């Protein structure tokens, strides 16, 4: 949606600075997905309006975090197994790490697929 608005505005000749948009620090919504936390031995479903980090916290697990905006690196989590597509939205991981399927930043990123197992 936001991308569409910006593209349309650019095509219509609006200078960029006059088209304000906010990438929300609050979790961006997305399709629900299932996760297994290997260390804690828990399974959960991440809802549409919560982040993966919030879903993990909701189960009483206390994962590390600081900025909750994909920049500080504190919440970096190892992926043990996956079958699906990562929706990386952070500014922390290098491109190679993003495509490796071995890391995820749960404060902002999501997943679309059948299996996701985290080292948490």
């Amino acid at each position, binding site marked *: 949606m936001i991308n569409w608005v910006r593209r349309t505005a650019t095509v219509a000749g609006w200078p960029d600075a006059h088209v304000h948009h906010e990438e929300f620090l*609050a979790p961006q919504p997305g399709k629900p997905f299932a996760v297994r936390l290997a260390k804690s031995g828990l399974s959960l479903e991440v809802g549409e309006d919560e982040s993966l980090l919030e879903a993990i916290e909701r189960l009483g697990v206390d994962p590390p975090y*600081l*900025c*909750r905006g994909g*920049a*500080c690196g504190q919440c970096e989590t190892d992926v043990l197994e996956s079958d699906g597509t990562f929706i990386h939205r952070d500014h922390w991981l290098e491109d190679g790490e993003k495509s490796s399927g071995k890391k995820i930043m749960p404060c902002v990123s999501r997943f679309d697929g059948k299996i996701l197992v985290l080292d948490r």
Partner: protein
Amino acid sequence: MTIRFNDETFRDDYSFSNSQRAKDRFPFPFHEDSYMYSINMEQHQGGPADSIYEKRFDVDEHYLAEMRDRALVLADDPLRCQSLPHMALAGWDLLELIMVSKSEDYPELFELHRDGSKWHWINKPMGIEDHFIFMDETTLPYAPMEYITRQTQGDFCVLDQREDNLWMDAGMVTTQADWSLDFDIGMNFFEWHAPVPLAHEKGIFKRALKFLLSIQQGAPARRLNWTMTVNPLLDTSPENYHKWGVQKNSLTPENIGSKQHLRVELQTFFRLPRSNGLVFPIRCYLMSFQDIMSKPKWGRRLHRVVRDLPEELATYKGFIDKRPMMLDFLAQYDDGLPTSFGVWPDDHSEPSLQK
């Protein structure tokens, strides 16, 4: 909490002091026994009761003295307050943000009454009361940014956001740690950060900027930064280096405990609603070495941090020459015991000095 405002100075006789409350809530910036730059940003949504994080804009016992010091700096050097022509709207945004926050967070000190665009502002500690028309500059004694930042502790950078960058296009900067608004005005995020060692290579600024660009209204963020200042000086500007730089040489092993101050900045980041700018308040807290030593955990830790700080940082922060003298003093307060994790003093659980 009623605040008693100190009658004190940050120049000449340096009568500045911290009450017990101010010492207890000092933002000691080290959560472990070493320090390196990192993306140490978190959300600014309150904090422990009576801590400096609790309110959006912390008002403390130094308020009136800091405002007097700001007025003196401005009288000497009006260029400490600048705003490029396109930043007028951001100035109103900032005035609104501060007036609304302070009147909600400190109703006994500040009042804001709004009737459409007719606004009525009361600042009781400073004895100011003004009626004005919001967005009409002619109804205030100063432009809006200057008006409100003459009544609010801390420096303010007001950033314009365009071309996926932030531009330092306005500010009120009288209590800075050796950088100059007049020099940085019009620069972007990478340009004004150019002098900082090591952080560029670590990708800190690239990532931090992306985070800042996505800060949204009502969801401010914060971080701490720190340096060292000899004498409780607020105005350590390059413009006045000839006045304060030489004071570093007045340090002696006998007076270092009272003269040497740890200077901590609480930096916050707020999105501005109409202009889509970002405001960056930099709030300065000073505490003398000897006061810090009254907290055993902070004493142990400060010694270890200063001892092990990379040379590039000690040089950039301007205390490499005095580091040996600092360490002689600080070592007396480090008995080698382990410290607990986190910044809080843990007065009741940390053992007192064992030597």
